[in-house]
């Protein structure tokens, strides 16, 4: 035991163990950031809704159930068919999506109003003779309680939009609150890019700082919902694609957010401004 080299060996083994621990934790963090549990939630929602159909049709009287898909990180499409539920990931690029289905029993005296919904919130109506589903507007959510406050005079924000009017509107709204507008994303605390999209209602894309991005997108979304309560049915937050033209713009600033809205107008522009202001408030 007290031979030459045994002390060095102990130090070496300790270092190896520490290195193994660090590598293990890094892999764990990397994998957990990469994965999401959408598949689990699709199975869960399909079964939950299928069983809800059975229960609703057996119940007496009229029932209205508010349901939501907010646990799934990606938007889901819900199809109510005659004798089963279908749920799949919303992706316009995929022509034949993989369906998660679950059956329920029908009653010959109850009509099933088949429908296809792309919504985070929807209502299910049961009455003595029919079952219907309808989408509901997004509701405000609780945002992460991260401390992101910053004095406006020292907060540089880079703003860009494919609509010059909206860009000017947001810049002026931020200047009124004493934020500093910069033309260089590299110097900015926040790079904000706002675009119109033909796709679903409201998309947020980020490059880094996941929790801060979640908070910012949540605040902007809540503000848009408050100002436009009937306008939005689906919203999602995801990492920006590598081949996106705005990736570097988002990456160069301390925090970057690309907001895509399908009904971009002055009201939405003001709501986005208010959301950014409350983020730094």
């Amino acid at each position, binding site marked *: 035991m007290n031979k030459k080299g045994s002390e060095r060996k102990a130090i070496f083994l300790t270092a190896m163990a520490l290195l193994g621990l660090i590598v293990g934790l890094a892999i764990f963090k990397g994998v957990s950031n990469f994965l999401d549990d959408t598949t689990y939630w699709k199975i869960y929602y399909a*079964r939950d809704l299928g*069983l809800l159909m059975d229960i609703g049709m*057996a119940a*007496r009287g009229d029932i209205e159930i508010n349901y939501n898909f907010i646990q799934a990180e990606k938007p889901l499409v819900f199809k109510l068919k*005659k004798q089963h539920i279908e749920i799949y990931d919303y992706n316009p690029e995929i022509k034949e999506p993989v369906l998660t289905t679950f059956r329920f*029993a029908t009653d010959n005296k*109850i009509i099933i109003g088949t429908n296809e919904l792309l919504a985070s919130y929807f209502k299910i109506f049961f009455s003595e003779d029919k079952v219907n589903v309808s989408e509901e507007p997004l509701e405000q959510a609780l945002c992460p309680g991260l401390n992101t406050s910053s004095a406006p005079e020292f907060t540089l924000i880079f703003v860009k939009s494919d609509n010059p009017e909206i860009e000017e509107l947001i810049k002026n709204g931020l200047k009124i609150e004493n934020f500093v507008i910069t033309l260089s994303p590299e110097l900015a605390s926040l790079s904000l890019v706002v675009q119109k999209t033909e796709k679903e209602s409201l998309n947020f894309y980020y490059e880094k700082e996941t929790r801060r991005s979640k908070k910012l997108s949540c605040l902007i979304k809540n503000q848009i919902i408050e100002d436009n309560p009937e306008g939005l049915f689906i919203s999602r937050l995801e990492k920006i694609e590598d081949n996106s033209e705005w990736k570097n713009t988002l990456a160069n600033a301390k925090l970057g957010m690309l907001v895509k809205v399908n009904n971009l107008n002055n009201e939405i522009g003001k709501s986005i401004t208010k959301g950014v202001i409350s983020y730094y408030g």
Partner: protein
Amino acid sequence: MDDPGDSDERRMLEMFPKFIFLAAIMIIIIFFAYFFTINNLRTETIEREIFFNRIIYSTNALAYYDEDIGRTYLGRIDLEKLNTTNLEKSINYSNNYFFAARITLQGKDPVYYHKELWETLEPLAKAKIRGPGGADYRVKEFRASYIENGTLKSAPIKIEVIRARS
């Protein structure tokens, strides 16, 4: 390391920390696999309970419904609805291989929900075969009231349900 005079036992002892390290890495990998595996959602029990309740309480299944006042009487069954045709119409799955049931009201002939399936699955359920291809059997007995020839009567009713395991 391999000095002259080093015995095999000594080399094994020197390898021991490496085995511990290897074991730790394997535990981490197994932990990852377990932690990130999508857990199975087992809903067989709740499906069976919902099926039971649907037979007993659904207005269009067995429960007595007074159309004049729009009230369904819990615990009272309608003898006119106690037949195979009505049961299969009021609880209709796309695939007839999920559930089979036998309802026996004391003093009456048993009524089946998917009789052919019942006859197929009953031996499997009795044999208690495990795994896919088997069947689960459950029974509920309670006292129910019914109206026969204008008289309110009460008798035990037994509802047996077999669920195909697949």
